[in-house]
């Protein structure tokens, strides 16, 4: 039944309230709590990822010009892995966790019990529209919640694909998709949720948190930032540039929250780095990257204009050392390198989210840490070096959501590592068990076993600390 105001513009506050009411009722009926229900949903989703692979790849191509390889590796495979791993571990995650107790309090047993929060809202983003919709939904289901998914309207093909596909695979009484833009999202945000997870930019992140404050709803905000890459002179330059390039242009053409945003390197080393990067770019994308099929396009003309603006200020455009080609019709911008743009220019103060890579130089590589720390904390920070001391200084001295050393992006593919930001790059984390935990309430449970009570000794101790007991 399309009771969700199927046509955009018809999903208003009333429809949102009805939707939440329905899902809450469903939740209170207890269905989503059972292990079997959760695993049924996850198995169905895993099946969907196999059966509808082509549809998903096509939708991603339509929305973003995303190369099939990227769609397969970054969106489908990671989602599949999320499902598989969750299915494997869920039973153990759901078990209460015993904790130790001590003599002064001596409840003889204490446990932490995981329970679902209730009805969860997932607001997804446009750059990995499939993965960033499915991954949180998988976590919410694993924890036993009912879920509403609001995919990004800026990736409309994926949004409508999700709307079309999910009812055929999962339980619509507890899992729903609402399509739409700002009015629909606002209607949803006015409701009382038990948790909200939002992936996107910090401006909207503030709006989401302010709306959540009205209902005292806890939130996870996966935001962005300018992810710096520090490149030391002591590196294997060939491997380093490949890993930087695949994390930058190989991830939705730089339109990824964890993509390298800018490079910091030593002044003397910069020319070598630039040459190596140029040749890597040629290997990856050929002599004419605008013709390469292996690059996502810019998502829409708004973002195209935004990125163009970053290049167009005169202090910046003269710093282009490679690339800079643009095709507004095709929404393409070629991989572009810039050297030493002014640090107060727009390209160095705003998150680029595109195929431009500024390189900032310093006299001594250690100065790079101060530059990074003087800016808002990013979602990810990267360092390329063979120098262990420098590595330690970086890990200890730079704050970011996550870090990779001699690599980019990969830390988010490890399900044992939490994925989330800090400061301006967000709050809360998910992936793997962290997803389960973030969508659960961890209830403290304590009980007193009669048998344990050795009356007198305990009684004396307690009398000493003043509890009036028998």
């Amino acid at each position, binding site marked *: 039944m399309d009771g969700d105001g199927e046509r955009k513009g018809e999903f208003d506050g009333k429809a949102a309230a009805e939707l939440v009411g329905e899902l809450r009722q469903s939740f*209170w009926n207890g269905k989503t*709590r059972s292990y079997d229900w959760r695993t049924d949903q996850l198995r169905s989703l895993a099946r969907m990822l196999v059966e509808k692979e082509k549809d998903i790849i096509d939708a991603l191509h339509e929305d973003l010009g995303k*190369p099939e*390889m990227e769609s*397969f*590796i970054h969106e489908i*495979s990671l989602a599949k*892995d999320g499902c598989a791993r969750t299915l494997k571990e869920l039973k153990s995650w759901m078990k209460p966790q015993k*904790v*130790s*107790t*001590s003599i*002064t*309090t001596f*409840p003889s047993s*204490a446990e*932490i019990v995981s329970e679902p929060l*209730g009805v969860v809202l997932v607001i997804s983003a446009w750059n990995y529209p499939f993965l960033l919709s499915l991954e949180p939904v998988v976590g919410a289901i694993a924890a036993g919640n009912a879920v509403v998914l609001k995919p990004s309207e800026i990736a409309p093909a994926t949004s409508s694909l999700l709307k079309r596909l999910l009812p055929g695979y999962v339980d619509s009484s507890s899992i729903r998709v609402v399509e739409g833009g700002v009015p629909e999202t606002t209607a949803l945000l006015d409701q009382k949720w*038990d948790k909200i997870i939002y992936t996107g930019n*910090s401006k909207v*992140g503030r709006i989401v*948190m*302010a709306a*959540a404050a*009205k209902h*005292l709803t806890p939130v996870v905000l996966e935001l962005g930032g300018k992810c710096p890459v520090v490149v030391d002179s002591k590196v*294997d330059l060939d491997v380093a540039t*490949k*890993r930087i390039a*695949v994390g930058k242009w*190989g991830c939705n053409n730089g339109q990824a929250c964890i993509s390298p945003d800018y490079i910091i390197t030593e002044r003397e080393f910069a020319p070598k780095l630039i040459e190596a990067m140029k040749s890597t770019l040629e*290997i990856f*994308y*050929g002599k004419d990257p605008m013709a390469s099929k*292996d690059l996502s396009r810019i998502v829409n003309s708004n973002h195209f204009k935004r990125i163009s603006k970053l290049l167009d200020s005169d202090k910046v455009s003269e710093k282009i050392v490679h690339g800079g080609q643009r095709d507004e019709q095709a929404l393409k911008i070629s991989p572009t390198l810039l050297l030493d743009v002014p640090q107060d220019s727009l390209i160095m103060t705003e998150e680029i989210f595109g195929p431009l890579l500024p390189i900032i130089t310093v006299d001594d590589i250690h100065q790079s840490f101060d530059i990074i720390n003087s800016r808002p904390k990013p979602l990810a920070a990267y360092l390329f070096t063979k120098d262990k001391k420098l590595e330690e200084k970086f890990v200890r001295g730079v*704050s970011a959501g*996550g*870090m990779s*050393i001699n*690599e980019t992006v990969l*830390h988010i593919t*490890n399900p044992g*590592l*939490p994925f989330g930001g*800090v*400061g*301006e790059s*967000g*709050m*809360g984390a998910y992936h793997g068990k962290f997803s389960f935990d973030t969508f659960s*309430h*961890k*209830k*403290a*449970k*304590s009980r*007193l076993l009669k048998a344990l009570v050795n009356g007198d000794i305990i009684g004396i101790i307690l009398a000493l*600390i003043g*509890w009036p007991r*028998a």
Partner: protein
Amino acid sequence: MGTVEERLGEMREAFRSGKTKCEKWRRSQLMALLALVREEEEGIFSALNRDLGKHRAEAFRDEVGVLIKSINFALSSLKQWMAPKSVKVPLVSFPSSATVVPEPLGVVLLFSSWNFPIGLALEPIIGAFSAGNVVALKPSELAPSSAEFLAEAIPRYLDGAAVKVFLGGPSVGSQLLEQRWDKILFTGSPRVGRVVMAAAAEHLTPVILELGGKCPAIVDSIGSSEQKVAAKRLVAGKWGPCCGQACVGIDYILVERQFASTLIDMLRRTVKSLYGDSRNLSRIVNRQHFMRLEGLLKDPSVSASVVHGGRFDSDNLKIEPTILLDPPLDSEIMTEEVFGPLLPIITLEKIGDSIAFVRDRPKPLAIYVFSNDEALKKRVVAETSSGSVTFNDTMIQFAVDTLPFGGVGGSGFGRYHGKFSFDAFSHEKAVMRRQFLLDFPLRYPPWNETKLRFLRDVFHFDYFGLLLVMMGLKK
């Protein structure tokens, strides 16, 4: 003293200097906090007595003793908490490793409440310092002696650049909320909790809200030999902590109709024996709350349900332990958090009905169940939601360092105590390290059908492992 901005600037400088990062500094601050609590005990007792008429024994049990325990627990666990945790890298991980590195958030803001004004101010500081942060503390102005005590004692014991006390009322609170913090922990009412979270949203500051709620005690029929113990725990759990003015104190009792009179009898006798001398009870914090509580009994149908107590001493702001039997469910005493020495008892047809009763209401910070019926207990755990559930006792979960202390739904979100305090004030940074060896061309563009086909075959068997093949972590 300086303005809020100036003092905040000093704190930011202190954090930037990096001194809070080392274990030595954190340990020294925790030891200094321990010294403060031990050496200034008399000062603490007299502040609590002035603010709340709290008896020294209660003050020690609920505030001083708890702090000593918590600080010692933190001191003995600090090294372990601070250590980076290795994480498995799926399949063959050479030469890469993954760790989670805890790091301080920075400058944190703590709002403490008036009912445990020393305990709830210093307990979060234990966590904040353990995690290496710098702290701004805004104690509640409704407990002014305690606030002044903290403002005076803290600079004498702790690092003055790393912890600052801000005295004042709502206007000081507002000024503080205009600034950008790295985390805020707020203990208090849901109304102010909303204000704090809305202010935090402007700066994307994560928050922990420790709020309240109506904590029910579900009292099943228990053997007469156990009734005495249960009655003591119920009475101590209601009036013991700050005369009912506690977020985890019992708010109301649910009992089967047929046992109500037995229960009430036991409670009355126990109240007389434990709190016959009113000096063993804290007073109501101020006139405003006193009048609020008086107001709860104004409704004639509510006052008619009083079966014990009901005397109000407005000169001394004392209210005697008062028990009510079945006040109307839509009366204010049953819709608002009581936060005082009035104890409504609601009778039910069957004790199993208590599940639905609790579920129909906002999620409380704690649910207490006195019962030997395992099935009932299981149902409570599975079918209700609350910050915590405690069986056959009250309040103790507060003092267990290994249990998270926090609410859910209307009772708040986030948690602390023990290691959860350390975690609350830390950012868990994911770190992956690789080397330059073993790079695998399959992971790089230009893409072609061969690479894709290979990956498909390979992903068919083990998705993640083969992702690693492609990423070059496994040949």
